[in-house]
């Protein structure tokens, strides 16, 4: 079923923030905000949940730690023990210190790459994917609030439009998306 979506454009992030605050106070659900840069303090206003990217980063990091430990144990102890500087690789624990920097680096590598890839996939922003934002100008100097009629069933579209018009918008647009 086609859905009615309203896009209201602003040219100042503070005006947008005040507008969003007003809309939310009246019970309107703001489904999305598009902006060329992160707007400070917008998340709690429009009710974005705390990101879980940190948890993902932790899991990727743990994976890296285990992979590095397992890999080095296999390379340096099991498969091909070498005597480096009078420190024979007899057991992993005795040579633990030498392996810590590598473990650390691999942990950071896994966490960083894992986070970046997760972020791109989750936001459907992998290079080459179609853009999600409604107007190319939101990558430049304009800010857009998106309201969905289905999420604001208690208001009619006209009511939503008139509420938006009180908030200092510079343009307003309606679309039907599937």
């Amino acid at each position, binding site marked *: 079923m086609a859905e009615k979506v309203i896009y209201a454009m602003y040219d100042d992030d503070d005006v947008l923030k005040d507008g969003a605050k007003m809309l939310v106070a009246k019970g309107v659900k703001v489904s999305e905000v598009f902006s060329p840069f992160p707007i400070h303090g917008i998340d709690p206003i429009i009710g974005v949940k705390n990101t879980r990217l940190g948890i993902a980063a932790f899991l990727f990091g743990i994976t890296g730690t285990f992979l590095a430990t397992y890999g080095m144990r296999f390379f340096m102890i099991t498969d091909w023990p070498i005597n480096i500087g009078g*420190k024979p690789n007899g057991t992993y624990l005795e040579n633990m210190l030498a392996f810590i*920097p590598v473990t650390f680096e691999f942990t950071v590598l896994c966490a960083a790459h894992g986070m970046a890839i997760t972020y791109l996939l989750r936001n459907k922003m992998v290079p080459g994917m179609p853009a999600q934002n409604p107007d190319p100008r939101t990558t430049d100097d304009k800010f857009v609030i998106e309201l969905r009629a289905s999420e604001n069933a208690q208001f009619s579209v006209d009511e939503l439009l008139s509420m938006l018009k009180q908030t200092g918008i510079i343009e307003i647009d309606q679309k039907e998306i599937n």
Partner: protein
Amino acid sequence: MAVGVLFTVLGIIMNMGDHHLGQRILAGGLINGFYFFAIGLGALFFLALQYATETGWYASVKRVIEAVAGFLPMGMGVLGLVLLIITLMDGAHIYLWMDSEVTTPGSHHYDAIIHGKTAYLNKGFFWVRTLAYFSVYFIFLRGFKNRSLREDREGGTEIHFTNYRKAAVFLVFFAVFSSASAWDWIMSIDVHWFSTLFGWYTFAGFWCCTMTVLVMLTLYLKKQGYLPNVNASHIHDLGKWTFATSFLWSYMWFSQYMLIWYANIPEEVIPYMNRIENYKLLYFGMFFINFAFPMVILMSRDAKRNAGILTFVGTIILIGHWLDIYVMVQAPSMGSEGKLGLIEIGMALLMAGLFIRTILTNLTKAPLTPVNHPFLDESIHHEI
């Protein structure tokens, strides 16, 4: 403080007749004198860092930082007194190089290696350096403090820019002096040994203590209702500093340890052998509690905003870094004779009492909100 006096006296009475007693008391004085002096110094450094980087968020807690830095004169007094007694006793078996027996060729205890270091390590130059550190720290502390109070009365941005310039100059002095003073006061106890990293290692340790003290003091004052401008974001920032400096310290500890372990050069390894033989549990234990506890507990965002967790971790960090200084001083000076008993703990409590008393008195001397600080408004609306 009274408990500290009691413990110290009890400890001294109990250990009467032990001929290491005098050395133990002086080592205890050095440990505690340096530990609390360094916390004050860390606060002065942190204040200068905020000035030099023109940071905004800290304005609400600025007077707390200044109060902790205000312990410096007292700390200098105690540390200076301990150093003076040690010097008058020819090193008192703590600074071996102060003993003329060791550096006179032909004498029974002659040590050629120490003799080779007399150009730097001699009583006269040691005191020239010590007084230079003290006076520079004192002059800058007084300057920052006076200007801070003048700013409250006069306002304007002129004082802000003076602070900015002076702080940059101070940081240059501090960069050299924090390293050199750690070599002089602490590393020279292990007179045969040297480590370029040692100064930064010590510095990272006391910086971490300073941030912990700031967090706990801010939480305490906020709970009493004295800091209305401090919100959860300020606490979060201070918590992040505690977390980050813990890691800085652990990184330094590990770098120093790993390089010496890998190179395995006898003259570098011997102090570590001493630590592993006599202080194994304390040396590795304090690394564990200074690294693992802050890492695991303070990692999440919510933990850095929770007063109970921060106080708990802060207490552990403060004890851990006290043990760090304890091992740094005791291992080389007392070796296998070193003990962690009533004397050390008593002196620590005594100094802690003095420290808390001085800081709380300092807090009463200036209004807790720097009303004309140019970034105060930014700080009040600080949100992360």
